[in-house]
């Protein structure tokens, strides 16, 4: 690798440019299923981020020892080990959260963000860069889930992190905490993200044009 992107860029790309939820559209199953409340979004996001960071580190360390033919199986075993750690820890320390996330904690094993980062990044980069990349993706995933959970909790329950935020006579839109509301919230959020990206591209183009005009003059 002759030319490498900077460490900070490796971290930041997970937050927006390559956000797993908003740009890569990976791991949408837990995204739709558990974001009925902001706290659930945080819990699911942090659990996934922990597994992602640990698995990326481990896979990056063993990347030269694993034969190509069995690499996916190896990844799954590594990921499953860390998911078991998270699952048991949450059951012991946060039983309520563990209960509300239900089957989606064990299902982190097959979360495509983790396998995706392992295959696309950790198996080709050193441990330090892999951890930074995983941290960025984990934070981006957690932020997106918290945002979706927050929007759905505010509209569907009139509260945020369990604290009532809407006026007392607010009639909650129950549909927003039902499965259909997950699709509404995710779809409209993706649309908004696309609008923001298009707007950013256009302003970048305009800036480039201004810069080149200034150079000529």
């Amino acid at each position, binding site marked *: 690798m002759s030319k490498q992107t900077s460490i900070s860029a490796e971290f930041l790309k997970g937050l927006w440019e390559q956000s797993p939820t908003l740009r890569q559209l990976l791991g949408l199953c837990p995204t739709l299923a558990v974001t009925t409340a902001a706290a659930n979004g945080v819990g699911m996001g942090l659990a996934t981020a922990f597994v992602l960071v640990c698995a990326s580190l481990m896979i990056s360390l063993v990347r030269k020892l694993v034969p190509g033919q069995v690499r996916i199986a190896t990844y799954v075993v590594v990921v499953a080990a860390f998911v078991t750690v998270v699952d048991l820890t949450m059951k012991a320390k946060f039983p309520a959260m563990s209960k509300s996330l239900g089957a989606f904690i064990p299902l982190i094993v097959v979360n495509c963000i983790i396998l995706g980062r392992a295959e696309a990044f950790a198996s080709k980069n050193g441990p330090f860069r892999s951890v930074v990349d995983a941290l960025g993706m984990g934070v981006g995933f957690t932020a997106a889930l918290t945002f979706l959970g927050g929007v759905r909790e505010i509209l569907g329950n009139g509260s945020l992190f369990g604290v009532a935020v809407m006026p007392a006579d607010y*009639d909650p*839109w*129950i*549909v*927003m905490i039902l499965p*259909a509301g997950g699709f*509404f919230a995710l*779809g409209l959020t993706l*649309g908004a993200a696309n609008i923001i990206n298009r707007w950013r591209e256009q302003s970048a183009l305009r800036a480039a044009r201004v810069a080149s005009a200034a150079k000529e003059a």
Partner: protein
Amino acid sequence: MATESSKGGSLQVIGEGNLSLVTSPHAHFGWSTARIMWTVSLSLVPCLASAVWFFGAGVLAPVAGAVIGAAATEWVVARLNHKPQTLPDGSAFLTGLLLGLIVPPGFSPLHALLGGVVSIGIGKAVFGGLGDNIFNPALVGRAFLQASFPAGMTDWSASVARVDAVSQATPLGLYKFGDPSQFASDIATQKLLVGNVGGCLGETSAVAILAGAAILLVTRIAHWQIMVSMVLGGFVFGGVLHLGGVGPSPLFHVLSGGFLFGAVFMATDYVTSPTTPRGQWIFGLGIALLTILIREFGGLPEGVMYSILMMNAAVPLINRGTRPRIYGAKR
């Protein structure tokens, strides 16, 4: 009811002289979108009048809320997309009016406004606007309201003005959850025809709906196949179950709840119904079958809305399956 026929009603001619090209449709009905939309809105006046007559002038508040929500969303969406303003073609007004007529009397105008916004925003605009939506926008709005405010959408207690005796529940609700012996005496066919029973604003009076149907059929805006097949399906499927000892008379099925309103104003939406006559028969019969099944064996007293939405989803498939044979081609 919406249309995808050409907007201006005139043929578009490209080129000049001997080499002019004319885009299809070559044989045009002659009516613009706006004229159709406003005519359908006019055909809803009897239903609106029956709602005011039976439930009082207060019902105009939710209707106005739904219309304002739908129209405002249409205007905003056109502005945001830098598209020509589609508000004057009346389709958004019509969607709002339809939505306003299928909420209970005494429904919160603010919630109706939200329903109008969802109808146009999520039911239509996100698919690309008029002609591209897969589901009936007014019913998308109603489904949203039903899921969001289940208490408000099933609160019939405001239906008191001229509705005597049975003021606390719809005939279907009484049938499903009420006392069977009381049910038989309370729900007379005559009442269902006139409309002095509990229910959503525009759906109670069969006479008013049939007046609207007459306008749609005389002007040939709606396809009669859909209306006839749905009502016929109601009689057939309801009748078979009734003869088998299950459920009320087929006449009760057809006259109660949103069956007629759905058949006349909702299922006949151009955009979300099949284009071939054969497909329209399948569509109408399918809605009737699903409605009877939901009413008899489902957990809800009424199923017209979900039946129409489900059959809307099947429309592309029906269109594919019933494509007419090209003249001269083999089967």
